[in-house]
């Protein structure tokens, strides 16, 4: 690979990373508004407020940047980058079309899980460095959440990798067949719930529970640093929706896949993202211990059952 190609691929991944979360954010604005009998943003940019998030970014840049006197300044400053960049790395591994992938590596299913696991460190660093009790509790909840959702997610991905006989996300999509929708259904449900917990979305938004602990680990953050944490949340939705599409919905499989493949991937991922928004509108927040109970009593046994089912079917039909 030439240097130029590597640069173009990296720029394309970062550009996608900066644009796709805005689309999900606008979707959330509009979906939530209409589900709640409102209009949502209507003015910025003219047509149905399409430029609202760009206007938000322009506003965030002009906000005063406050670092509390008690904070650990160095860690406080780099925490948003630690929360954000792992999702960027994760997005680089996910193929959106046949051969259209940022970083084409053999074990991309494993690599993407490894990259996504780092993001929580940003929350922990931000929460600890803020020297604020709300932030501390939020960060601790986030860390507690990690030990609940990480395993079901890894086991569910391992099951799909087992079914496809490869650890490459592109390979998984190539092997995928429509009947996997039924075969991998328990794993898909487990993965979806675990993904919601990973990106701190309702009903698992205890780490940033605004009615209890202000805004959790981000309480002391203002301006652009705060915006980066928000961007990480929406980038998380993008990465999880794309990953779900690639693992369980066959990625670019569909009519005229050769020419329309990318459209199918993005459309499926957009529908998943819309369902994640829908969950936020319709579900109350769980407690941290309820998430743990859900994860260890239901999700992990279901994921292990899925693993056994996958292995038996693979060995029997080989």
């Amino acid at each position: 690979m030439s240097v130029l190609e590597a640069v173009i691929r990296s720029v394309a991944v970062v550009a996608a990373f900066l644009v796709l979360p805005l689309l999900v954010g606008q979707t959330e604005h509009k979906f939530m508004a209409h589900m709640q009998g409102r209009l949502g943003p209507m003015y910025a940019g003219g047509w149905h407020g399409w430029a609202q998030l760009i206007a938000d970014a322009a506003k965030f840049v002009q906000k005063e940047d406050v670092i509390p006197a008690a904070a650990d300044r160095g860690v406080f400053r780099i925490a948003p980058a630690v929360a954000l960049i792992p999702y960027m790395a994760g997005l680089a591994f996910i193929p959106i079309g046949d051969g259209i992938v940022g970083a084409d590596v053999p074990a991309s299913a494993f690599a993407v899980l490894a990259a996504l696991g780092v993001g929580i460190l940003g929350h922990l660093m931000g929460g600890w460095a803020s020297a604020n009790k709300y932030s501390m509790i939020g960060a601790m909840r986030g860390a507690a959440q990690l030990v609940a959702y990480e395993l079901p997610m890894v086991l569910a991905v391992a099951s799909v990798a087992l079914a496809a006989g490869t650890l490459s996300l592109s390979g998984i999509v190539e092997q995928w067949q429509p009947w996997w929708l039924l075969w991998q259904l328990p794993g898909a449900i487990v993965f979806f719930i675990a993904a919601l917990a990973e990106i701190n979305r309702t009903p698992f938004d205890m780490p940033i529970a605004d009615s209890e602990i202000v805004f959790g680990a981000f309480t002391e953050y203002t301006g652009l640093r705060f915006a980066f944490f928000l961007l990480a949340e929406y980038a998380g939705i993008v990465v999880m929706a794309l990953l779900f599409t690639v693992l369980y919905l066959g990625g670019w499989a569909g009519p005229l896949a050769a020419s329309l493949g990318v459209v199918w991937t993005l459309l499926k991922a957009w529908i998943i993202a819309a369902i994640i928004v829908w969950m936020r509108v319709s579900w109350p927040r769980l407690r941290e211990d309820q998430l743990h109970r859900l994860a260890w009593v239901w999700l992990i046994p279901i994921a292990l059952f899925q693993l056994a089912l996958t292995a038996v079917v693979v060995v029997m039909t080989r």
Partner: protein
Amino acid sequence: MAGYIVLGGVIVLGILVFVAAAVVRWLLAPKAPTYAKLKTYESGMDPIGEGWAQTNVRYFVYAFLYVIFAVDAVYLFPWANVIRDQNLGVPALVEMAIFIGIIVLGLAHAARRGLLRWV
């Protein structure tokens, strides 16, 4: 290996975006710190004690279980690559069933002893 070069490029670009945003903010954002503004936020009250308070880490049992299962999960991924091998197949399936079965037994034991209840 070529893929990992792109990964490195993405990480470097990500850091560049972060630094560039910091420069833009430094140029555009107002700076008017006051004593009250820099005080730790505690819903408008004067902070009591410091933020780095000791917290009761009640989930250490989950953390132990997590580590055990995470190691288990790492062993599953190589198996995914070789399960279609003609020489492995059924014997590997049985071995893996024993391996996972022992861990599930441990989980069931933990559940029976009430360790999976937070409070």
